[in-house]
Structures are given as structure tokens and as C-alpha cells.
């Protein structure tokens, strides 16, 4: 279970503006009828990218200029609603490695963390500026420096917020916590032994 340290993420971006983009929108429920996460990538944001007859709508994710994007840029409360890990999995399977948004819903944020996808928060102003830069130049190289809490692109850079616990997990290669959780076995059993309902 050796994980890699995640000190930075570099790639091209795509700007999907909007507030309260929920996980139903990221992956509609009908695509969750599956017993593995394989193949979810193609249904990412399906209903906002397709007309009901299946033809493509105008959407940044349908723009061939952004086909190589690995960093998604968005607004406030990104990933709200359902706890479905299918949403970060769909992003991941579609090639995304990180999200920069104004803020994140908590469950979504945690789910992304365990997949090794940093979600960093920035101000509306910085996001708007970065979004405009990405629109103007889809090949723009963006770097999220996890260690320094900063995003760099072109000649610009800005501060982002990432909770210390998440940053530490990425930097120490413990973003998937299972290894460390398993190491706590004796403490788990001691804690459980003090709780009568655990025995039932």
C-alpha cells in the first residue's frame, strides 16, 4: 500500500463556473447503477453536457481545447449534496487530478482526499482571474503547490487554502488512511471494549 507523496499538481485547467454544483450534477444517479467505479469518467457532468437526444451541449468540458485539462476550476460549495464517491471517482477517471474552487462541501472534500486529489480553496477574485486566463489560453500550465499553499500560472500566483491535516496527508503519502488506521488495532479494540453497544 505504498502511496506517493503529493507535493504539487501541474496540468491544464478548465473553468466550470457556478455555485452549489452538487454531486448529482457531477454524476447523475442513474449512472450509479454499477458495482465498480470503472467507466464513470464518460458520464461526468452528463446532463449538463448533453441534450436529451444525446447530442452535445455547449459546455467547457465538451470543448476540444480543454480535452487535456486535469485541474477543474469552479465556484462556491463545490460537490454539495449526496455523499456519493462516484462524483470524485468520475472526475478522477476522466483524468482530473485536482480541483480549485471557492469552497467545497465536506464529504466531497474528504472523498477526494482519500483518492489523492487535492481540493484547494481560493478567493472569488483569484478564481475568476484564473478562469479567464484558462479560457484565453487552454494550454496554460497551472501548478498547485501543496507544500506552499499557492497556485502558480504564467506570471501570476495566489494563495490557496488547504486544511493542515489534508496537506500533511498529501505530503507524507498518507492520503489514503487505511494503512495507518489498521496500525491502530490495539487502540481500536481498547476503545470498543469500553462501549457496551459494541458487544451486541
Amino acid at each position, binding site marked *: 500500500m505504498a502511496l506517493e507523496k503529493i507535493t504539487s499538481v501541474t496540468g491544464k485547467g478548465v473553468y466550470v463556473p457556478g455555485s*452549489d454544483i452538487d454531486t448529482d450534477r457531477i454524476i447523475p444517479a442513474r449512472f450509479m*447503477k454499477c458495482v465498480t467505479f470503472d467507466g464513470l469518467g464518460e458520464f461526468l457532468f452528463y446532463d449538463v453536457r448533453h441534450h436529451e437526444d444525446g447530442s452535445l451541449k455547449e459546455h467547457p468540458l465538451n470543448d476540444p481545447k480543454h480535452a487535456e485539462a486535469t485541474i477543474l476550476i469552479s465556484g462556491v460549495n463545490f460537490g454539495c449534496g449526496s*455523499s456519493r464517491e462516484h462524483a470524485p471517482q468520475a472526475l478522477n477517471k476522466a483524468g482530473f487530478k485536482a480541483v480549485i474552487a471557492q469552497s467545497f462541501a465536506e464529504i466531497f472534500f474528504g472523498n477526494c482526499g482519500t483518492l489523492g486529489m487535492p481540493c484547494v480553496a481560493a478567493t472569488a477574485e483569484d478564481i475568476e482571474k484564473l478562469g479567464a486566463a484558462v479560457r484565453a489560453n487552454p494550454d496554460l500550465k497551472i501548478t498547485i503547490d501543496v507544500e506552499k499553499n499557492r497556485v502558480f500560472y504564467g506570471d501570476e500566483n495566489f494563495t490557496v487554502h488547504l486544511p493542515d491535516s489534508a496537506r500533511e496527508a498529501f505530503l*507524507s503519502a498518507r492520503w489514503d488512511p487505511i494503512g495507518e*488506521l489498521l496500525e491502530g488495532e490495539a487502540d*481500536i479494540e481498547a476503545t470498543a471494549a469500553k462501549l*457496551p453497544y459494541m458487544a451486541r
Partner: protein
Amino acid sequence: MSQSLFEKVWDAHTVRQLSNGQTQLLIGTHLIHEVTSPQAFGMLRDLGLKVKYPNRTFATVDHIVPTQSQVEPFADPLAQEMINALRQNCEEFGVTFFDINTGHQGIVHVVGPEQGITQPGTTIACGDSHTATHGAFGAIAFGIGTTQIRDLLATQTMAMTKLKVRRINVEGELPPGVYAKDVILHIIKLLGAKGGIGYAYEYGGSVFDNFTMEERMTVCNMSIEGGARCGYVNPDEKTFEYLEGRPYCPQGEEWDEAVERWKAMASDPDCEYDDVVDIRAEDIAPSVTWGISPDHGIFVNETIPDPAQESDPDKRTSIEEALEYMKLPAGAPIEGTPVDVCFIGSCTNGRLSDFREAAKYLKGHQVAEGVKAIAVPGSQVVDQLCKSEGIDQVFRDAGFEWREAGCSMCLAMNPDKLIGDQLCASSSNRNFKGRQGSPTGRTILMSPVMVAAAAVTGKVTDAREVFHVGETAGV
């Protein structure tokens, strides 16, 4: 030192601190369903791990179950594959499964309390964001992702950062025709869809003291719609009365001991909160949503927001986007908006008291022509209780379809879906774009009695007027 229930439960379940500063938290009760668990069992197999405490995981099947007939094989082979996978996983790993043939199947957040699995002072997690429902019993309960389901199966613990606690007091007396659903829609409207991020919500005050357990569940259920991962009410005599004698609750002497422990878990009267919000019950009226986020709420007698009146450009854009999707006119009254479908059910409002209350008013009324109305009990037990009281017949006589237990049209993973841009008056919890199964389908959230009123008039209606609420006894 004085502590809140959240802090007491957190401390009692803290295993140790992890290297990144998070807490390794013991989750005593793990609930699973068919949609978010199969991949977790797959990961477990890949890692060669077993379920550490199989006696502390409980499964049911709810999201994909057809409600017209639960007879297998299901018409949808993917749905059948999912229930088969859950059966196999539960059998292989020794997990209790409230399967369709048990008479106890239903929505996971209805089944847990019903079976007495949900208990005060415990930690509960489920791969479902509405897990906060169980907080009604004074449990710390929250939704998790599939990788965390794997963590719980393998270790009964997860990595978590401690939440702050916001106390929300609702004091006074709710006016007639105002329900728990209206209270939570009002709270979400006031504090916003992201207002609760980083917080656990502790609900209290005279309104919650007077609420039944089912009403408390309705409020806690929608905590996540306000951004709060968990919400709870301190346990009291009503909590114990509800739980006593339920299958998974302690019995005899053990029961008495448990009640003493549970009482001690309630927040100390002088404990400090990170934030306190006070709301007057008299200020709350029957509520409906007009947009595409649960915080897009108004009282039924108010008008739809007008983006032209909004000075904040972000909010203006958000209102415009919502109204374009909802095809509703800015500034017009919401009352009178024609509805196509009416849905009573879900983990928010699919319990006995929800159907009982709606049935009380539906008697003698007929569903309006052209409206499709369905009632979906939250569990097989709720279904049986409704049938024993003749409630199902009242619904049928009024022109509703009475279905079998499941999540149904709340998220439309089964055949119950909106078609095209149908507008649904719904007792569920989310009005997101496409939530009810059609990419252009529209949802207006409201209480079950308000859905009943919409069903009989064919439009969004103030239930207090159509049903003369408050003029009859027993409201």
C-alpha cells in the same frame, strides 16, 4: 468541564490521533446499502482484509428497489446485479441484511431507528449523506464516501477532523399547518446551503422538546442540505420511549443501564457552543422551494425572487440560473404553480406519522385530473403499519398510487422518474437539477400535507386553506 453531546460522544469514540492531526474515530454502527458499498467490498477483497466487527454493520436495500413490485428478477438487470452483489457481500462477510423477504427492508435511515439499531450516544456512519437522520436520537451520525466504507469495514474506524457545534434554538409554538419540514427548510434558508460546513448542528428549544421522534428525524435528515454533515437532538424521555422494546435495543436490566448512560450523554446545560442561532417558531410558515438548491426556499404565500431586485451579482446569477431551469416567472406568487407529479415518501418524510397526517386531510378529496400522485412508504414496517390503520386505502381512494418501500422518486435510481420537464411537488430533500430522474425535471420541496394539497388542487397551494387546517381538532 461542561461538554456538548457532540464532544462527549467524540471523546468516548476517539481511538487515537493520526499523524496528520486528524482523529481516528470509532464508528460503532455502520449502515450500508446497495449503491455505495459494492466497491468498498471490492477494495476489501483486493487488500485481503476481513470485516472487523461484522456484528456492527447492518445492510438494507433501498435506492434501486422498484416500488410497483418488489418481485425478482427486477426488470432492470443492473438493479438486480446490485442487490445480488449486496446479498453476496453480506453473506461472505457475515453482515446482517434486512433483505426484501425479511419484512424489515426499507430506506436505511428509516430501518435503523425502527429496529432500535440507532441509539443515543453512539457514532453512526453510512455511505449516504442523509445519515444525520439518526442524530434525532442523540447519535453523532454522518455520511461518508465509499473509501471510508472500506475503512469502516476493515477497522470500524475512520480518519476525521473534529467539527464545531452550532446550537440552533427554535422557541415558541409552531402555528397550525406548520411542520418539521417547514422548520428545516426555514433553517436552511436562513443559514444557507453551505452555512453548516465545518459544524455539527445541535437542534433544541421548545419546538424540538415538543416534537415527536419522527419530526426530529425529518429535521436532522436535512442537516446536510444546510452543509452540516451531522445534526442532532439531545436524547430525552421521548427518545427512550420510542426505543424501548425495539429488536436491537438492550432489554431488562441492560435497558435501565443503557438509559442512564444515554441521559448522561446529553449536552450539559451550561456547555459552550461555537455558535448559537435563535429562531422564533411563530415566524415559520408552510415552506416551499422555488429553485435548484434546498436553500432556495420561501413561504407558500410569498413571491418567487426577482433577480432584478438582487444587488449581489453572484446571487443574481444564481437566481437567474435557477429560474431558467425551473421555468418560473420572477416576482410572481409561487402559489398556483401547476404541478404534474406529487410524491410523498423518502428518508425525510416517509414514516408512519407523515402518511397519517396527510391521510387525515386527504379523506374526502380527489387527486386533480392529470396529476400523477404516488405514496411510497419508507420501509416494509411503515407499509404494514399504514395498512393496519387503513391509511393506504385513504390514499388509494383519493387517487394516489400506494407503492412498496424504497427511496423511489427522491433520487430516481429505480423506475420512478419524472418525464421531461414535469414539475413535482415532493416531500423529499433535494431539488437539484435532474434529481428526480429527468435531466429537465423540476422539484418543489414541501411537507407531506402540502404535497397532498398540491395533489388535490393540481397546483402549489397553501394546505391550511384547502384543508381548513386549524379549524379542525387535533392538528
